[in-house]
């Protein structure tokens, strides 16, 4: 039992973090460079858990989840999640967008330049062809290109049994990243913004909001690590642990996203500041591989 990242994982994480800071600054989240996807591919970040025979790194879900939390903290392209699942479980080696089936329409997320998109249908994970000639706008999360299409015909099911959990795990990692980002933005701002002749982080009213943000992140991060290890080990309760990780990360992302705006005060309400970005990302992720109460209540668990 060891739930701290290994030296290799730490090194991978540091390299990712350094690269993200340069390649994906938050200030440029709404207008990413056109060749960002190619850069992500060149870094190997689109195939961390994909088999080496497929051009991937063949690493375990644990490492991928760690790195995805870091990518999520920089509001990385949402299609990284779907592409990782597709590359792990099929022989499709290129970018895959995401589909969200809703009432009357299917939403295609970040599927530009992608031949296929990944979605969940009746609890099964499937890929769908992306129609040509779509009109792209942006989602509430302004980093995500969005197109709406009519309910799609048949897709092809992914037979890998863990694909749905893989998708949920990586969405959880991205949500944790959004929660981390909101916490850091709030804490950094509380250190420099002064009111009543003091940094506002001096006041317990602000300090305790920030502390609660840190608690939510620590809780969600711990469960993410455990869930990733359970998925790697193929334990019988892996589905529960992944669902728990997604639920806690979603809650952390939403609650921290809201708290971050409050800590920023008036400026937090503006479009020009960035406090709304992690909140909007949190709302979007809440619809990707969502967790219901019965997902958490139904499985029989042995306590401890």
């Amino acid at each position, binding site marked *: *039992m*060891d*739930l*701290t*990242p*290994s030296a290799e*994982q730490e090194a991978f994480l540091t390299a990712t973090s350094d690269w993200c800071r340069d390649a994906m600054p938050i200030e440029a989240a709404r207008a990413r460079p056109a060749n960002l996807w190619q850069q992500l591919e060149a870094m190997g970040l689109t195939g961390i858990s994909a088999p080496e025979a497929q051009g991937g790194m063949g690493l375990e879900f*644990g490492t991928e989840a*760690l790195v995805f939390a870091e990518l999520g903290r920089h509001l990385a392209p949402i299609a990284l999640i779907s592409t990782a699942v597709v590359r792990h479980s099929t022989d499709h080696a290129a970018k895959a967008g995401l589909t969200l089936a809703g009432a009357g329409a299917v939403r295609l997320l970040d599927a530009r330049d992608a031949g296929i998109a990944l979605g969940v249908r009746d609890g099964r994970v499937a890929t769908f062809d992306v129609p040509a000639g779509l009109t792209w706008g942006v989602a509430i999360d302004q980093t995500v290109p969005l197109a709406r299409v009519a309910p799609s015909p048949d897709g092809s099911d992914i037979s890998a049994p863990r694909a749905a959990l893989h998708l949920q795990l990586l969405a959880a990692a991205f949500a944790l990243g959004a929660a981390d980002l909101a*916490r850091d933005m709030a*804490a950094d701002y*509380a*250190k420099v913004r002064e009111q009543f002749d*003091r*940094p506002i*982080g*001096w*006041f*317990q009213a*602000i*300090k*305790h909001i*920030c*502390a*609660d943000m*840190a*608690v939510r992140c*620590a*809780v*969600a991060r*711990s*469960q993410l*690590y*455990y869930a*990733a*290890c*359970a998925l*790697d*080990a193929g*334990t019988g309760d892996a589905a*529960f*642990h992944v*669902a*728990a*990780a997604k*639920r*806690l990360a979603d*809650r952390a992302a939403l609650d921290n996203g809201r708290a971050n705006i409050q800590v920023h005060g008036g400026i937090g309400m503006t479009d020009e500041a960035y406090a709304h970005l992690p909140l909007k990302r949190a709302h979007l992720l809440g619809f990707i591989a969502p967790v219901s*109460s*019965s*997902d*958490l*209540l139904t499985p029989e*668990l042995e*306590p*401890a």
Partner: protein
Amino acid sequence: MEIGFSSEERQFREQCRDWLHANVPAERRPMDAIDAIDFDKAWQRTLFDAGWAGINWPVDYGGRGLSIVQQVIWLEEYARAHAPWIGANFVGVNHGGPTLIANATDEQKAYHLPRILKGEAIWCQGFSEPGAGSDLAGIRTTGRVEGDELVVNGSKIWTSFAHVADWQELVIRTEPGSSRHKGLSWVICDMHSPGITIRPIRKISGQTEFAQVFYDDVRIPLANVVGGLGNGWRVSMSTLGFERGTGFIADQVKNAIEVEELIGRARANGMIRDDRIADDLAQMRAEVAALRAMTYRNISEVIRTGQPGPESSVIRLFTSELGQRIERMAVTLMGEAMIDFAYGDDDAVADYLRGFAATIAGGTAQIQRDIIGERLLGLPKSR
């Protein structure tokens, strides 16, 4: 990162489980401290005789010298077996003992540690004062050096098990005129010394588990100072981080078991059909899983670096508030039956009421938030 246990550890878990299955007492632990004292001492002795006390304590002082992971496994199996709370032995086993291991002289360790493990000596904690609860540096009880003795005057409060204790980990101001963290000393106080008066305090749940203690010219040999005169703050802090990280494992497993029981009860009485209750229970199930993961992370950190990570305060805060929400859910599921409680012995209502202590004792939830804000996030110190 991996969540598996070695074959040796799995074997150890089987041994714990088998012994507990055969030896956990069938009768309930009495709820009041006075009534429970004989039970607590006998159970601790039983644990010691079978080799389950002090699993990661040094062999020289009666422990087993095993790993922290084995200690964790034992605590998990202990809670899972519904073994009784160690009650009056809590301070000695979880706080006083570890503090002595880290800071005491060989003589102090040789005398006290085996007595703690055998259940022969009950310890209590003398930190909080009427004017200084969470503000530990605000201590005013004094110890005047006179020859080779300290003469102690003042008062301590919220002292759990004071009225049944033999020894006390007592923090006092030994340098006249000193303030805050400076000039404090951590001493071993004999609770049977002349000049000590104990006034038990009844809790909102009806039990008298804690007390106020008055010191009127109480004489304590200088040989009972641990870690040197004036080093009380450092000695007091030395075990708090560890305590915050692993001192709550039993609570954590108890919480997990309780959430399972609450889900079963909500199904049985139909309240699970209330979406809000179902959602709260689902959230709690996810949170108790996360708490275990967080504790494992903290223990991994101890194994890797020798000390718990800075997130110990997060564990402390999260455990206490999660526990309170679970206790509140238990009385919610009882419905109006909870009003039948009249200082009676309904466990759910008593746990709910005395559970309010969890976010007050050992530094309030607000103090924990200050620590998290300042040490984890680097926000400016407001005290």
